[in-house]
């Protein structure tokens, strides 16, 4: 034995050199978890394409321009597309101004008092209310109100649009408020320092700076409204297979349907032909919502600024 060395060898645990099996297994498991979602999305889209694309091959745009029918060879989604488009317009007109104004109030005007906190908590909770419950609100308030005004049974595209507008309002408020909060306060202070009023600061400095974020939020909210089904079913958007002959006036005051409601109706039918039609309608709906979502994400990535 030689004299003890001054240099102490590091303990084994620090010197580890072998392959870290546990670490690799863990990383692999995590990656699998992540890939699961991608795989599900791929299988979902693939299965719908394989069943639905033949419908488009056989019938082309005829599927998009035909009315509902109990004959699967003739049935199309034209009424659903018109209904969904009208719903989107009503939702945009009602929810966006109120939502953005609420966000401006919460972020720029309200003192941090009890009332502002109440509104804040209230909006958070509204965002978590299941969509089917909004259907009940639509049923008692909007359908009841329109029926009371003497317009048939009140189950029209207007009550449907108002219900969806209420449904996405919290989403619009939360995303707009986040976008406004991300604008640095230096911008505000500079505006006030130049003698601008609060509204001038909001209108000319804050809103332009927050616009991309607000736009992203509103597009996502619209995409959510396009795909919502449960509240529409509660307030009467499912029509079975009868067709509404369409003057424009009848569209607003008469019965209506929407693309997701048609999907629900067809999905329940046992005939094989309707299963293919369901997939074809799903392709249309997915195309619309995925394009809207992708546009929103791209918009955010393109215009998001680091302050």
């Amino acid at each position: 034995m030689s004299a003890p060395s001054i240099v102490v060898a590091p303990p084994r645990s620090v010197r580890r050199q072998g392959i870290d099996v546990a670490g690799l297994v863990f990383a692999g498991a995590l990656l699998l978890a992540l890939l699961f979602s991608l795989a599900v999305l791929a299988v979902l889209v693939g299965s719908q394409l394989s069943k639905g694309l033949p419908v488009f091959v056989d019938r082309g745009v005829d599927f998009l321009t035909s009315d509902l029918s109990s004959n699967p060879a003739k049935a199309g989604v034209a009424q659903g597309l018109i209904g969904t488009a009208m719903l989107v317009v009503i939702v945009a007109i009602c929810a966006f101004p109120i939502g953005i104004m609420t966000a401006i109030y919460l972020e720029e005007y309200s003192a941090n008092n009890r009332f502002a906190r109440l509104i804040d908590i209230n909006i958070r909770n509204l965002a978590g209310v299941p969509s089917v419950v909004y259907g009940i609100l639509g049923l008692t308030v909007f359908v009841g109100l329109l029926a009371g005004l003497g317009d048939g049974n009140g189950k029209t595209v207007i009550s449907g649009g108002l219900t969806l507008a209420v449904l996405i309002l919290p989403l619009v408020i939360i995303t707009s408020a986040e976008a406004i909060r991300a604008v640095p306060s230096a911008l505000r202070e500079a505006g006030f320092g130049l003698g601008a009023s609060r509204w001038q600061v909001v209108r000319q400095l804050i809103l332009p700076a927050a616009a991309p974020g607000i736009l992203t939020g509103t597009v996502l909210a619209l995409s959510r409204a396009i795909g919502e089904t449960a509240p529409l079913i509660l307030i009467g958007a499912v029509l079975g297979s009868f067709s509404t002959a369409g003057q424009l006036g009848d569209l607003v005051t008469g019965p209506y349907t929407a693309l997701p409601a048609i999907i629900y109706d067809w999905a329940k039918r046992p005939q094989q032909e309707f299963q293919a039609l369901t997939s074809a309608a799903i392709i249309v709906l997915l195309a619309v919502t995925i394009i809207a979502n992708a546009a929103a994400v791209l918009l955010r990535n393109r215009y998001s600024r680091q302050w």
Partner: protein
Amino acid sequence: MTAASTPAPGSRLRGTANRRRNEGAIRAVLLAAAVVSILISVGIVLSLIFEAISFLSQIQLSQLFADGWFPRRGQFSISTVVVGTMIVAVVAMAIAAPIGLGSAIYLSEYASPRVRGIVKPVLEILAGVPSVVLGFFALTWISPNVVQAIFTGAKGFNLLAAGIGVGILTIPLVASISEDAMRAVPAALREASVGLGARKLRTSVRVVVPAAISGIVAAMILAVSRAIGETMVVALAAGATAGSLFTFNPLGPGQTLTGAMVSLAAGSDQVTGATAAFQSLFFLGLLLFLATLGLNVLGDAFVRRTRQKY
């Protein structure tokens, strides 16, 4: 000019009367918009409560403990729909909790910025898939290719397929809230752990996850709330369009809170007017509203705890 005749600088800075009036009007309009959200909440609560009370006053208490949920026959078994809902929620969480949390750990601790940039948008697209689409997928793909392939006795409509579908819909929610919580953990904690010789696995599991536990718990609670409220997947894939007997069997059809509501509005249970069967819709809505509200308040409390911690 003497100092005495000059108006105080504060009052001059407040602007002319005209300008102040305009500003006041704008503030009032914005406030009115904010009040709309309160009115919506009040509207939801009122529209649920009155009809639900009317429902309870029309039926005998024993009808709430019948053999099953058959609204047209006056059988309103609460336990049937509650157990159905819980089966779906448990299955959904069995899918969404591990996969959502695993994805979150990977995205927060392992993924390069490039991978994150690709995977995050895909998760967001999955979150944007309409639930009626997932319902059809659960019924026509998951049920035959997964559930019936594993369990030979399973029916075409079954709670298990519905639960898996709901779970898939909740994965992005779990992943995004958990990831936010883990990214909020300061890098100093990770560096300290690595400095003590821990490797990535140990750092992730023993340091980052415990530090982010409030946010992760919040993600799970909010996911349960979402799963309970999810409607279209259950309405299509769980299959009990005409009521259901009390069942614990996830391999057969069953009824849930939300599924029963859709059945009442559009399925074979469809009824209208001020009958007890129609008003049971509002009673179910009230139960659902209270359950999700309770979970959301709890989840929000946990989310706030994470934010305050560091």
